[in-house]
């Protein structure tokens, strides 16, 4: 009992320390002002932006960030001393928490091209981005140079203090047949439905086709049940509600055909509504969904 209390106290302390280390880190302090790679110089910035001024920096794209809880950001431009045409743009966004940082990252990622920095990352010829803690970092170059981008991304990643973990819901998605880099977090209207609110979705490979598992998050189980009712109403009027839902999926489970996404099976577990959609082989979807549920324990 006493041992348990000690472990719990240490865990709480570590959690508090972790959060406070992020909380104390201002987004501007992560921008290197002097200690950046040799041969480079800061030519513009640092510029700081907030919810009101972000539009001035990235125009309408700001709306996406605001939907994901954007707090503040900082921006700077660095120039290669030898080749002045070679420049780096660095944006660091404080998204408030790791879930929202992942959300923006997942919406920016167009395919799986990990760069090996941050909690998860993307690297191509001219751009690199990653999330770590509550921060989303975007680096772009005028000249194609992935090695350089990786060097800068790694440097920024090291400047972000404290340990950090990806959102726990990512671990619920069964790994087999999961399309790499496909998990996304939506801050609203998951699957294009207002009533599903926020949640995750990930793509699964089935032969040459794909289907999706999704996880909608609600405030409590009553809200999740209500959303199931809304989805069933939608299917009744626009698609089809079917029978033959496995008993193991619980009393609120449903099956049907979504007019735009194809076959769907869904269930409620606590404050979650989870399911599979767009599949062809029902057994395969049901097995994956069962594993999805199992992973939540």
């Amino acid at each position, binding site marked *: 009992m006493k041992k348990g209390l000690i472990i719990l106290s240490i865990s709480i302390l570590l959690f508090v320390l972790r959060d406070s280390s992020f909380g104390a880190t201002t987004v501007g302090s992560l921008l290197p002002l002097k200690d950046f790679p040799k041969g480079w110089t800061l030519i*513009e910035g640092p510029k700081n932006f*907030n*919810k*009101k001024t972000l*539009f001035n920096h*990235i*125009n*309408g*794209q700001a*709306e*996406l960030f605001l*939907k994901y*809880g954007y*707090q503040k950001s900082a921006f700077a*431009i660095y120039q290669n001393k030898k080749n002045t045409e070679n*420049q780096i*743009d660095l944006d660091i966004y404080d998204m*408030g928490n790791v879930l929202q940082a992942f959300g923006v990252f*997942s*919406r*920016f*990622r*167009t*395919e799986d091209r990990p760069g090996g920095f941050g909690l998860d990352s993307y690297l*191509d010829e*001219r*751009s690199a981005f990653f999330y770590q803690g509550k921060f989303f970092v975007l680096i*772009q170059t*005028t000249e194609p140079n992935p090695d350089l981008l990786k060097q800068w991304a790694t440097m920024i990643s090291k400047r972000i203090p404290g340990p950090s973990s990806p959102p726990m819901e990512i671990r619920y998605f069964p790994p087999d047949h999961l*399309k790499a*880099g*496909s*998990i*996304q977090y*939506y801050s*609203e*209207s998951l*699957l*294009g*439905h*207002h*009533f599903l609110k926020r949640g995750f*979705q990930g*793509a699964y490979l089935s032969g040459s086709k*794909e*289907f*999706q598992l999704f996880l909608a998050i609600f405030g409590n189980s009553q809200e999740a049940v209500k959303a199931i009712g809304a989805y069933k109403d939608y299917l009744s009027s*626009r*698609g089809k509600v079917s029978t033959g839902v496995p008993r193991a999926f619980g009393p609120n489970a449903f099956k049907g055909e*979504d*007019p*735009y*996404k*194809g076959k769907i099976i869904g269930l409620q577990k606590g404050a979650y509504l989870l399911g599979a*959609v*767009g599949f062809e082989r029902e057994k395969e979807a049901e097995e994956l969904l069962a594993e999805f549920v199992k992973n939540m324990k």
Partner: protein
Amino acid sequence: MLSEKMERRKFLKTMSSTLLGAAAAPLLSGLPSFAKAGETSSLEYRTLGKTGLKVTTVSMGVMNCSDPAVLQRAFDLGINFYDTADCYMRGHNEEMVGKVFEGKRDKVHIQTKVHPGDEKKMRASVERSLRRLRTDYIDVLVWHGHRHPEEVSDPGLFEFMGKMKKEGKTRFIGFSAHSNMASLLTEAAKSTFHDVALVSYNFTHSKGLKEAVALAAKAGIGIVAMKTQAGGYKKGKMEGITPHQAALKYVLTDQNVAAAVPGVVSIEEIEECAAVMKSSFSRGNLEQLKKYRAFLDGRICTMCGGCTGECPNGVAYGDLLRLVMYHDGYQNDRLVKEAFGDSPAVAQIERCSECLSCSVMCRRGIDIRGKMELARSILRDLNMTGSIAG
């Protein structure tokens, strides 16, 4: 005119992979369309200025939409004009539009954007847009985010956009603006260059903008209204018309507006918006809307800038009005805390007590002093008074 440096920065913001994203790959191919018969019978079309395009008055801003089903639903509803941009979600937004409308290209009009830069980079941007959109032409190519009237008459813009038109990359050209719209439209109306203007336009804007819209429309510029919902009106329903529909219809009562492109993210939202085309508004309905607008007037600061610098004590009342809007309009105290937790404006509010009367006058009738008192009250209720200087 934009500096070369700024042009470069804007270009960098638009850089994006040309590779197709698959994380949210649509699963639409082969699926039946479930549009109900008759759904398209109440569509309302207007001509988009001198382009001659017949566009649905309620069209769609795709910017924040990430689910192809929403686009598919919009198409099934008969909506035929879609606004996207090269930079939205690093090009992913254009990719989604391209995938959904592949094979239906002749049934929709697509508007996308390009950012200022040198010709090589702008050309590359347009080519990327074409690849992502899976088409060999753009219907309307918009120069993104003008802020100053001189940008509207930029010879560099004329030259590049003219080339794109001549080469068949785009059928029509124009510009977009989030601020200073009246000046920009007035300037644009002086030339025959612009076919389309995409401007913020909603029920909170001034008569000056309405007149500029009319002037531009008279000059043949097709007006596409964005930011039509303006926000801050989540206050129930009015005799069957939701605030979103009311706001949208308000914009469309201006016949100089060819189309509105509300940004929607769900099937329910696009259905709600599209239903506006089916509604015919009586005088009584319009009176209701006027009352509703009056309700909002004096409550919502439209950030028009008309009162900037009027406070002798330097109080950032614009920020504090926004605080009141978050609390009173959005009913979102979490947002108040997030946005104003460390704002210097919160401490400045104490300076208001130094004046017996407020010298700041709002042209839209906002009671500034009353609002500042309300802001103080909100801050106290939210235990944010520690931030207020004693």
